[in-house]
Each structure stands twice: as C-alpha cells, then as structure tokens.
C-alpha cells in the first residue's frame, strides 16, 4: 500500500489503537511508543511524518508486551487445567494429535485425522470433542460464546490461543497422509474457487492475485503456496485491535463468508476445516508467531 491514503489509514489505525487498549495503562503505552521512536532514530534514510506514523504503528503491533492477545493465552491456560463438566475433569488428557496432554507443536499440525472420532478436525472441533467426551461439559453454552464480545469471554478463543502459542516458533506442518486428510485439502481447494451468493464471490475473487486491495485493505494471495500464505496462516490466532478481541481462523472465515455474501457458516463445520486444511497446505513451512496483533 504505497500511497498517501494508506498512510492516513494507518494513522487512523494508530489513533484507534491508543483508544482501544483499555487493558493497558497509558504509561505502558507511552513506554511502548517511546521504545518504537527510539528504534526509529536508528534508521536511515529519514522518514516523513506519515511514514513515521506507520513505522510506529508497526512497532507497536509487534511488541508482545502491548499485545492483549496474551491475556487470552493466560485465560486459556487456566481453562485447560480447570476441572469442569459433569465428569469434573480437566482438559489435560485431551489428545490434540501428539498424544494426551501433549501441546508442544500440536497446533502446527492441525487440522489432522483423529482415529477415535474417525474424522479430520481443527483445533476448535477437537476442543469441543474433548469437552464433550472427557469433561461432559455443556458445549451448547460453549458454542453460544464461540466469539467473545464485550463482557463475554470465549473459552474456544482462549483455549485456542493457549494451544496455538505452544507452537510459536515452529513451522506449519500440514498433515496430508490419511485419505480423509487428503480429501479435506482437495475439497478446501475446490471451495476456495466456488462462487456464489448475490455478488458471485468466491475466496479467489479476493485472494487469488498479487498486490490487490479492497478499498485500502491489502488482500493476501492465498491461491499459491508461499510467503503470503505462510505469513497469513502463521499469524492466527490474532488479537484484532478493531474488534478488541482475540480471534481464531473460525472467526476469520466467518467474516470472509459474510463479505462473500454467503449464509452464516456453521461453527466448527467441515467446509471451514477443509478451507483451513487447504490454507495450511499453502502455508507449509511458515513460522508460527502467535498470538499476533492486527488491525
């Protein structure tokens, strides 16, 4: 986004950021900004004012200590070991693919095939499975809170943030061995190109060319494997500043289908897992750094 307009947009974002981080004290924010400014002075060539604003914004976005997404990670950690449900059990025996309770690197390989369920599942689907089978937890209530809002925490967002964070620094490793995994990826690819809705849109309408944007929002090209797909998939879950909430891929795809003018996609359903599988395939090798923080 090379133009002045983009610069202005980023400045707006910066203002928004300042206003929308109620969790952080002004002092912490000021410190983060000072830090960012310090970094700037070391840079050549000199930047004009709007470029400086963008750079400062970027710095803030990449500072883990000013990322409220880590609060979701902490909440998720508590939920993971909390005894809940009719069985008064924790999730600690939940097998996310690497063995019961083994979290390191599990997220990097999801979605994947689970023999006990005879299905391919993504993180959220697997969590729901474990809540039901291991804890006897009311997943209706959990699903009602699938997306957090003001005064409403989401167990699924918090737990996914916690689990995903345990793969930070690792590489995305799509599982494409089992026949059902291969089918997931192949169907996901077809769905990526399937047009429909009153606008005739598919994912490919918005994500199959280099350097395109809608209004001022840059659109990653996810139709080819490589850096754009890697950077995208390696950055979810993310803290969305514009929504003051941590969001997972389930929410991103929900929002994209909304923009696509399709019906509401069912949470944790197979087309979403298929798309996620396809996108993970495009993103293979991308180095996970989550939760990230975005617009």
């Amino acid at each position: 986004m090379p133009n002045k307009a983009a610069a202005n947009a980023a400045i707006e974002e910066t203002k928004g950021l300042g206003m929308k981080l109620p969790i952080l004290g002004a002092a912490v924010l000021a410190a983060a900004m000072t830090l960012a400014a310090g970094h700037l002075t070391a840079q050549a060539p000199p930047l004009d004012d709007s470029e400086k604003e963008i750079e400062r914004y970027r710095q803030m976005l990449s500072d883990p200590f000013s990322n409220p997404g880590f609060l979701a990670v902490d909440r998720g950690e508590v939920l993971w070991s909390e005894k809940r449900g009719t069985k008064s059990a924790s999730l600690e025996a939940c097998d996310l693919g690497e063995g019961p309770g083994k979290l390191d690197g599990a997220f990097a390989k999801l979605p994947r095939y689970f023999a006990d369920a005879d299905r391919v599942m993504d993180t959220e689907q697997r969590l729901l499975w474990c809540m039901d089978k291991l804890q006897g937890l009311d997943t209706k209530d959990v699903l009602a809170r699938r997306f957090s809002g003001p005064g409403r925490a989401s167990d699924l967002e918090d737990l996914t943030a916690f689990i995903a964070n345990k793969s930070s620094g690792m590489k995305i490793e799509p599982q494409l061995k089992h026949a059902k995994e291969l089918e997931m990826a192949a169907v996901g690819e077809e769905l990526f190109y399937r047009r429909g809705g009153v606008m005739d849109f598919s994912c490919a309408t918005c994500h199959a060319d280099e350097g395109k944007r809608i209004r001022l929002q840059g659109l990653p090209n996810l139709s080819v494997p490589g850096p754009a797909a890697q950077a995208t998939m390696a950055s979810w879950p993310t803290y969305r500043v514009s929504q003051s909430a941590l969001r997972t891929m389930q929410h991103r795809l929900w929002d994209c289908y909304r923009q696509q003018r399709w019906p509401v996609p069912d949470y944790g359903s197979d087309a979403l897992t298929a798309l996620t599988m396809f996108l993970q395939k495009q993103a293979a090798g991308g180095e996970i750094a989550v939760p990230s923080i975005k617009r």
Partner: protein
Amino acid sequence: MTRLPFITLALASLLAGAAAQAQDKPSQATIDSYVKATFGKASPEWQARITPDESLAACNLHRNAVPSAEADAIIKRELAKVGFPADGKLLGNWKEGYKVANNGRGGQFSDPPGTVAGGNCFACHQLDPKEVSYGTLGPSLAAYGKDRKYDPDAIKEAYTKIYNSMAVVPCSNMPRFGTNKVLDEQQIKDVLAYLFDPESPVNK
C-alpha cells in the same frame, strides 16, 4: 509470564512440507456434502443464493478460464438476462449514483432486513480521482465517460456491464448487479450517470 518474543516471520523454506501427493479432484457430490454440512441450516432463500446457475457452474468448473465455446454460451445466456429501461433513457442522476457507488452494504448475513444494497464500486475501482480510498480488483474508471467522449454505444455497453458483467466478459469477477437483483434499474441508471455525466467528479 514466560513467552516467546514476537518473532519476525521468516519467509523462506517454501518447500518444506509442501510435497503433498496430488489428489484427484473430489466429486461434485463430495463437495456439495461439505457445503451442506456448513451451510445446510440456512433458509431456502439463502440456499438458493449459493446454488450456482448454469453460467456460474461452468465458471466454477473451469475456475473462470472457460473454453471458448463455453464462453460464447455464457455471453449469449447472460445477455438474455439484461433488462433495458422501457423508455430507453439510460442515464439517471450522478449524485444519487455516487451514493450507490460508495455504499458497500447489503447482502451480508449481518445486514438488518430491508437494508438498501449498494454497488460498492469503490471496493474494486478507482472512480472519482480525488477519492483516495478505492480498491484495485477492477480497472480504474477515472474519466470513464470523458475518455469515451460520452459515446452512446459506450453508455449502452457500460449499462450492460453493470446489469450483467458476464454478458460482456464471461466469468467476470464483477458482480451481476441487475440480474442478481442487487441493484434496481434506477440505481443502475444513477451509477451510469456517475460514470458518464460530464458534471460527475469521475470526469473532472
């Protein structure tokens, strides 16, 4: 709190893990079963919206790169779906047309009932060169009418394009605004005036 620091994304190692075996294209029935699993609870009206018509089914099958015979069939079929104004007047009011071009609402499941849909042209096109917030999925339409010397044939072609983009370019990525009932005839005439009125900012 021990956390890994935010890591700058390493954009290398493209090939690692990407060596998945080639997979046969899944059957249409398999694809449809996934669509049903995810969207099956939607109302019949919403279901109908995502059931591709004949042209869109061909575009889906070929990922928009339809063979030429298919392309001709699409143009013929879609052209027949274009409705022209009874009084033959194609140009409306450019000021109203700006509103249509600038409005991105409508058709989303989050829209309240009765939402007036816009054409969202700015999402994909540059129009008024003074407007900085525009997208690039479509070509720039700045000075569109002026560049075409306000030629009646160009006006008719653009009307057709907006009413049904595929009547001009098969499998166009642009919505078929009239045919899919996103915009009504008056809105299309107004947005056309936004492109072709000499007083419109598009031509200034």
